[in-house]
């Protein structure tokens, strides 16, 4: 659009805007808020219209009656030059449509005016439990409409000042609608505990005889001596305001006319514009029209103003939430995996433990198996001896040569041999028994002695076994599985013995040395056999490796397992002096040395 056409458009707009003023120079259109319906209003306000008409003879005064919305629409549409409305509504229109008050209705406080602005909260006189506004907490109160100034807002403000908030349902308003007499209907029906009436209305109705005097009582009367009792402060009277487009000349002429009105009746008494600040303050306090934006302000405006930050925070929060959830999920998954892995490991360990116990048992049995030929012989010896004595006694009895000495000797020998046989069997049984591993403190030297005795008992013509004890007191007690270690020793002794047999020197003594090794106790079994070929040495502890024609090759691998379970190592080395082989291992010492136990 070019400049010329723009200017033309503006000119047209200006002309159109001036048109009504020019055309209607002789009209004065006044919109009046009609509380009680157009008819009642017309009755009330026509005197003003007539009075103004008299004052402004050149002008055609027209009165129009509207409810609140209608009045506002008419004003917005430019259909009115002036409005007359209650203070609350005026404040709204002032802020929305820039209506400007030019006069305020003057209310004489000593008279019960129909236009006095303020409210009375009334209750039936017999309700002795309701004395002040504070007693309304938790009660139902009848009002006209939610935006009624005297019919609700003034009382709301008063209740709120007393910290009774209808919005928090500390008192329940019941809106009866207009006209105000409906409030009385609600009250009469007992539907509510209290009702709100415009100030002076109660007195007016009583005076007209429409209500019996003393039927109702006013709560918290502010000035008990005034002709009209009220529960709220009084607010400035109704406003006479000019619309924004009303020419100043017309406004001035109308104001002059208003101020010069003289006559009886509220509608004719107008004064200089009052301060509507208390109304503003009240409406702002209640955060209702035109201050309803304050409500928004609290939440919406904050949101509108801070939404980038809020959104940022929200995004951060979501990210954090996502991250936390993600971490949580991962942690849970990892935990699950970990516990599954742990469970699997436990299971495997348990299975390995069972296998190890089986293997140990097997190896003990296999050692026993290898020794069983001689074992039978060893058991036969005492049994044969017992048999010999028994039969000898019988023989002597038959030949009459049974002396007391002979009986005593035979009986003694028989008993001794029986014990010997039992001892051998007990040793085997203990050794071969299946059992779970258990660690106990025990005396290392005693442990060696026991197994040496068993070994010697299992072999006929067992070789000498020299035990050399170089242990100081604190190394004597070891924490081990006694039978497992004895099994290791038995295997090592058997190996030593086999090594000696292999070179035809079965009677060669075996040496066992007990010595300290750091914080542990070291046991070495030394033979004087052929020693080890280097190649065999490397494979010595492998399962199923054997140099013996009838060996299973399990002995040393199991011994190694047992020693390692005791955190030690089974090692083979040539002795420092001469030929043969040293097999040694270490055992953990008992935690607290038991000097007193021995």
């Amino acid at each position, binding site marked *: 659009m070019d400049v010329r056409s723009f200017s033309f458009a503006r000119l047209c707009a200006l002309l159109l805007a001036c048109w009504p003023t020019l055309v209607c120079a002789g009209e004065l259109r006044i919109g009046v808020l009609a509380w009680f319906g157009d008819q009642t209003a017309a009755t009330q306000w026509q005197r003003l219209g007539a009075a103004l008409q008299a004052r402004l003879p050149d002008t055609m005064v027209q009165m129009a009656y509207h409810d609140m919305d209608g009045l506002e629409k008419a004003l917005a549409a430019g259909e009115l030059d002036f409005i007359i409305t209650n203070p609350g509504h005026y404040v709204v229109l002032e802020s929305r449509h820039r209506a400007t008050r030019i006069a305020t209705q003057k209310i004489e406080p000593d008279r019960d005016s129909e236009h006095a602005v303020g409210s009375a909260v009334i209750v039936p006189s017999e309700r002795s439990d309701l004395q002040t506004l504070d007693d309304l907490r938790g009660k139902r109160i009848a009002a006209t409409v939610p935006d009624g100034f005297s019919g609700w807002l003034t009382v709301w403000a008063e209740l709120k000042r007393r910290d009774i908030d209808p919005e928090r349902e500390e008192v329940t308003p019941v809106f009866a609608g207009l006209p105000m007499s409906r409030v009385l209907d609600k009250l009469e029906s007992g539907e509510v505990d209290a009702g709100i009436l415009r100030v002076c209305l109660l007195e007016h109705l009583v005076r007209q005889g429409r209500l019996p005097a003393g039927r109702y009582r006013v709560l918290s009367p502010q000035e008990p001596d005034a002709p009209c009792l009220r529960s709220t402060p009084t607010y400035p009277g109704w406003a006479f305001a000019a619309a924004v487009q009303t020419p100043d000349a017309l406004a001035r002429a109308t104001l002059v006319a208003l101020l010069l009105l003289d006559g009886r009746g509220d509608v004719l008494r107008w004064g200089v514009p009052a301060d509507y600040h208390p109304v503003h303050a009240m409406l702002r306090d209640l955060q209702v029209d035109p201050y309803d934006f304050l409500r928004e302000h609290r939440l919406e405006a904050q949101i509108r103003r801070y939404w980038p930050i809020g959104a940022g925070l929200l995004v951060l929060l979501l990210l954090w939430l996502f991250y936390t959830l993600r971490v949580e999920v991962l942690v849970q998954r990892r935990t699950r995996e970990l516990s599954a892995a742990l469970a699997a490991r436990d299971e495997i360990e348990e299975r390995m433990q069972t296998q190890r116990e089986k293997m140990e048992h097997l190896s003990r049995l296999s050692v026993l198996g290898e020794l069983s030929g001689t074992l039978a012989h060893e058991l036969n*010896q005492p049994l044969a001896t017992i048999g010999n004595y028994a039969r000898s006694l019988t023989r002597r009895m038959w030949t009459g040569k049974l002396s007391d000495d002979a009986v005593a000797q035979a009986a003694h020998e028989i008993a001794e041999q029986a014990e010997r046989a039992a001892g051998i069997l007990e040793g085997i049984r203990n050794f071969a028994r299946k059992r779970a591993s258990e660690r106990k403190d025990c005396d290392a030297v005693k442990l060696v002695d026991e197994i040496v005795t068993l070994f010697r008992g299992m072999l006929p013509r067992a070789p000498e076994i020299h035990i050399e004890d170089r242990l100081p007191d604190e190394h004597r007690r070891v924490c081990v599985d006694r039978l497992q270690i004895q099994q290791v020793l038995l295997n090592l002794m058997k190996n030593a013995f086999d090594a000696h047999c292999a070179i035809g020197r079965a009677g060669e003594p075996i040496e066992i040395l007990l010595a300290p090794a750091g914080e542990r106790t070291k046991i070495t079994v030394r033979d004087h056999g052929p020693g080890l070929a280097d190649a065999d040495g490397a494979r010595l502890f492998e399962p199923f490796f054997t140099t013996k024609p009838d060996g299973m090759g399990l002995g040393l691998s199991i011994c190694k397992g047992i020693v390692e379970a005791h955190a030690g190592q089974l090692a083979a080395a040539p002795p420092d002096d001469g030929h043969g082989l040293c097999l040694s291992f270490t055992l953990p010492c008992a935690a607290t040395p038991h000097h007193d136990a021995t």
Partner: protein
Amino acid sequence: MTPPKPDPVIHVIDDEASFRRSLIFLLESSGWTACEHDSAESFLASPPTLPATGGCLVLDIRMPRISGLELQRRLAALDSPWPIIFMTGHGDVDLAVQAMKDGAVDFLQKPFKDQAFLDTIERAVELSRTRQQASRRCNEARALLDRLSPREAEVARRLALGLSNKEIGRDLSISDNTVHVHRQHVMEKTGTGSAAELARLILRADPSGLDEQ
């Protein structure tokens, strides 16, 4: 009731003391005289001589240092007349066979019945007694034959083989008369009356004395 046996001696050699003592107790219950030794060494330290009435050795086949078999070998080297009974454990059959080849009387596998043991002892003692007699008669025969001169011994051997005087004379390149004189001396010195009797004497002294030379 048989008269008490003279005094054959049974020697038990076993390193297992309690079993050894039980055998002694058993032998004594049956009236034998028994001696115990805890090792081959202690037996060899002062080897007892076999009494004329006999006796035997009871040996454990497995013993430390000197085993039963080793002791048997050493006694054989000493030409000992003691009959030997071995006691073996389970699984020692190979050793027992070797012992029997080397001249043991018998072997008993532990555990054994007392009666079997005593019967074996009885047999061994009997054997020893027979051996004693045989060896005594051998010694007597040798003593008689030792009295002959070399030429007389040659004639005696041929007589025992059943040759006639003529054949002997031709063999030895001497006259029949000389053969006759030698024959007279042989019969006198040996106290034999016939060639058959002389042959028995020679065989008693040396079971291979009449083999082809």
